[in-house]
Each structure stands twice: as structure tokens, then as C-alpha cells.
């Protein structure tokens, strides 16, 4: 069982950082919404600590996702093939642009994904800071809570767009190449 280095890093980017970040949203949005409800009880110190750790983890995952995408995967995606290259399998952008039936996956999908994704780490860094700063008195700052919830929802939408197009792009023009890593050896004869 083998995997290429580029495949592995793409899996970490999408399924490791990105998907975990996406999964974490359900918890964050539910907790923020619960705290915004009229008469919601103040969370216990342990609950506040847990939420802060949860949000810090989301911030780390969000930055890891966009930075690995922009500085590892995107250069492989947008690499320009040498003149006369017939097999565009190692050049995903060129492969998509070579056909009118796939070019919009780049000009809408990738162009949207590569920029909108950055909204998520900026927004979640702010939300984590708000929780760190205001902690138990957040209940007294309704408009700050509302802003945190709105930015969290926007980060979720941005991540959903980036994640969905990432999944489609990896179907039509997967990132290939790099050193081969052997994960398991077949011992059957």
C-alpha cells in the first residue's frame, strides 16, 4: 500500500486539518447559540475552559488548513507544464483549463476557494480572543456575543465552500506526484 508525498499532504490538508475544523463548527455554533439565548445559564469554569481549548484548537486547525493549502498544495496545483507536455496529469490547473467542460472548476471553483478560505482563520482567531478576554462576563455583552456568532457562521460558510470545491477539484484534477511512501507491504504470496 503506497501513497505519494503530494497525496499524503493533500489528505492532511483536506481530511486532517480542514475536515476536523469543519466538524468542530457544529460544537462551536451550538455553544455560541446556546450562550446567546435569553436566560441561558452562565457556563461553569470547567465549561468555559473546555470551550476556550476547543476554540484554540479550531484556530490552529484553520491556520494549518489555509497555510498548508497555499504554500504546499497550491504551488503543485498551479505549476506550469513545460512546452509540448501532452500528459497534464501532474499539472491540475492546466488539465482543467485544457477543456471547456472543466475550465470553470478552476475559474470559479479554485479562484473562489483560494480566497474565501482565509476568512475562516481570521474570523475564528477573533472569536477565540473574545472568549479568552470576556470569559464568564460574555453573557453581559450581548452585541459582542452576536458578532462572535455571526463571524463563526461566516467562517463555517467560507470553510464549506472551500471544502466542497476542494473535494470536487480533487476528483477532476487530483494533485499527483512526489516521492512514493510505502505504508504497508503485502506479505501475501
Amino acid at each position, binding site marked *: 500500500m503506497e501513497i505519494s508525498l503530494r497525496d499524503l499532504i493533500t489528505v492532511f490538508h483536506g481530511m486532517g486539518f480542514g475536515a476536523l475544523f469543519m466538524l468542530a463548527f457544529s460544537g462551536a455554533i451550538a455553544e455560541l447559540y446556546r450562550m446567546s439565548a435569553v436566560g441561558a445559564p452562565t457556563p461553569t469554569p470547567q465549561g468555559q475552559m473546555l470551550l476556550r481549548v476547543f476554540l484554540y484548537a479550531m484556530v490552529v486547525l484553520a491556520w494549518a488548513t489555509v497555510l498548508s493549502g497555499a504554500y504546499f498544495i*497550491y*504551488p503543485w496545483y498551479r505549476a506550469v507544464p513545460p512546452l509540448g507536455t501532452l500528459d497534464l496529469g501532474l499539472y491540475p490547473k492546466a488539465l482543467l483549463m485544457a477543456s471547456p467542460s472543466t475550465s470553470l472548476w478552476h475559474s*470559479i471553483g479554485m479562484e473562489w476557494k483560494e480566497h474565501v478560505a482565509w476568512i475562516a482563520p481570521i474570523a475564528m482567531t477573533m472569536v477565540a480572543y473574545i472568549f479568552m478576554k*470576556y470569559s464568564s462576563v460574555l453573557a453581559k455583552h450581548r*452585541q459582542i456575543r452576536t458578532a462572535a456568532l455571526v463571524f463563526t457562521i461566516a467562517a463555517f460558510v467560507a470553510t464549506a465552500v472551500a471544502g466542497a470545491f476542494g473535494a470536487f477539484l480533487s476528483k477532476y484534477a487530483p494533485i499527483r506526484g512526489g516521492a512514493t511512501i510505502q505504508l504497508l507491504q503485502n506479505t501475501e504470496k
Partner: protein
Amino acid sequence: MTQNFDTIPNGPGAAAILAAGFGCFLVGLFALIGDAFPVVSKFFTFYKPTGALSGVTTSAIIIWLVGWYILSRAWHDKNVEMKWVNIFAFSFLLLSLLLTFPPFTELLQGK
């Protein structure tokens, strides 16, 4: 040093919210002008393998963090009108979502 949480003003939170909205907006704005003007795209190419995306995002992040720091210093002990902070921050956020959507930016550029 202990902090009395009951008396934390809303200024630091407002600074973080407004700066985050503006930072998101800058990502969209820089992406738009980078796409519209080749000379700007060239300027934003901080790291050639990543192209203009490297400069668009790095510039937006630096301005966001510097703006956050300046607002935090200015508002650290103040209570500000949160209604207006949220109106501006949400407007920036909405614009950022629009400015990163290629069909909208192409419409703005008349393509």
C-alpha cells in the same frame, strides 16, 4: 494581578470584531485589484510558487493585525457604541464574501 471581569469594557472586543471584519474585507479587496491589474498582481507575488495569493493574504493579515493592535490600544479602557461597530464589521464581512466570489468580481471588472 487579578482582573475584575465585571468591569471589562467592550472596547477590546469591539477592536477585535472591527479589525477582523476589515481583515476579511482586505482579502477580497486585494484579490480583486490583483486580478484587475497585472502590475498589482506582480507586486503581490511575494512567493513565486504561490503567486499573487501569497501577497494578497500576507498583506491583508499584516494590516488586520496592525489595525487590531492600534484599535486595541485606542479602545482598551473604553466602552464604544457596539451597534456601529457591528454594522461596519458585518458590512465588511459581507463585502469580503462577495469580493471573493469570482462571478461578482468579474461583473465589477466588466468581464
